[in-house]
């Protein structure tokens, strides 16, 4: 479980996140949704410690993460896997070396054990016979899947995904969503996904928070989102013409 309390974050005096409080539950895919520029990525990067926050608390179980220094954070970071918007695979390493990197860095496993683990992770995300390819030789969907394989290499307790579907076609996007949900349940991880894709929301949104202009405006799940009273959320959810047609008539 990850608990965020009264989080504030600003850049050059501009408040980007204003008093955000939320609990992300274990074994669930928790979604942070909102328009581009609403502060989703800043919230995600603040939670993992890539941005230092001005005020508030970030708790990983019973550890106050934001008060730890770099070396003390390492222990928690070894339990974190993260999928970045652009995949962030290391260009100079092959697919196998990318997935193997955290194993080389943080474990004392034998070479065979590492290779077994790499192949297991790659198989788990349906990447076959691509061990020796470089990231530049992969499609967008394959890059995301390799990045997921790298993120789960160390059996993380926490999985963070920043816009996992950006730049993907709808079918590949659904496959990535399904994979994230399966892995979350399989390893009982606390998963937090940043997205503005309503398909993702309706597919995997077990817990959803909606952020607008740095404020948390709404919290619920995929069953409640279509019947919300929050106008800003409704403008977001029913933005396109197809969604408008499907909007409940009472709203």
């Amino acid at each position: 479980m990850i608990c965020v309390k009264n989080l504030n974050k600003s850049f050059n005096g501009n408040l980007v996140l204003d008093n955000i409080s939320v609990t992300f539950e274990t074994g669930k895919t928790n979604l942070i949704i909102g328009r581009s520029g609403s502060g989703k990525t800043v919230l995600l990067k603040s939670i993992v410690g890539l941005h230092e926050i001005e005020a508030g608390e970030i708790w990983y179980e019973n550890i106050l993460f934001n008060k730890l220094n770099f070396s003390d954070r390492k222990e928690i970071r070894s339990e974190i896997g993260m999928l970045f918007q652009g995949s962030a695979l290391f260009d100079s390493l092959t697919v196998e070396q990318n997935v193997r990197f955290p194993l080389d860095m943080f474990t004392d496993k034998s070479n065979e054990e590492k290779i077994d683990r790499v192949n297991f992770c790659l198989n788990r995300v349906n990447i076959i016979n691509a061990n020796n390819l470089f990231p530049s030789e992969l499609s967008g969907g394959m890059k995301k899947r390799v990045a997921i394989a790298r993120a789960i290499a160390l059996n993380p307790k926490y999985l963070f995904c920043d816009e996992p579907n950006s730049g993907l076609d709808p079918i590949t996007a659904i496959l990535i969503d399904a994979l994230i949900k399966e892995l979350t349940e399989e390893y009982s991880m606390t998963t937090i996904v940043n997205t503005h894709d309503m398909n993702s929301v309706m597919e995997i949104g077990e817990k959803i928070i909606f952020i607008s202009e740095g404020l948390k405006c709404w919290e619920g799940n995929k069953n409640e989102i279509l019947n919300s009273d929050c106008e800003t959320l409704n403008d977001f959810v029913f933005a396109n013409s197809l969604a408008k047609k499907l909007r409940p008539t009472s709203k």
Partner: protein
Amino acid sequence: MIKFLTHIGNYFLLLKKVFSKPEKPSIYYRQTMREFVYLGLSSIGIIVIISFFMGAVITLQTAYNTENPIYPKYLIGLGCRDSIILEFSSTVAALILAGKVGSNIASEIGTMRVTEQIDALEIMGVNSASYLILPKIIATLLFNPILTLIGIIVGIFGGWIAGTLSGVITSENFIYGIQYAFIPYYITYSLIKTVFFAFIITSVSAFQGYFVDGGSLEVGRASTKAVVYSSVLILMFNVILTQILLS
């Protein structure tokens, strides 16, 4: 002024991070070997070409400026040797390497920054500054002196070829000149300068790349800044080190 001091402060804070204890020395060793190839071995070609022609032109210029019979011919060889050892093999080669290696380092690290690869390292708990920069510094500190020695040998060889083929000096005179009044300390002086310059090139370029904020345009700018700042610092430290080491 405050901005300048902030940059200086950030530079030394980055160096503190770079020289902190490595997570796993075996991985750093592997990275250092990789950098030997990318930053060291791959620079041999350009150093050989530049040194050869530099030696050739120094010999020809010295010859055409010392045509008066009161100057013994072997001075051409001596002039070529001392110019190459004292200045060209270290300073000019460092300026060339600032362009080649410096821009390479700044753009590599800068691209890693804008594509979130550095964030990915940090999330894993890896000290990204140390992991990315320390192997480059070690590789250049160890390999650039070798490049300097190669530069000296090839430069003098270039001078000999140009001098003898053009007929401005005989082979005997040139060889006598490069042996005449040789001061071995000049080699030490040149190597000490090279080590300083290698550190400047690598650390300044890595600093520019590491703190890139934005996209490809900013990576390009960082690369340019890396070359310009490294070159200016090399020329500044050339004066300071010369005063300290030769006075």
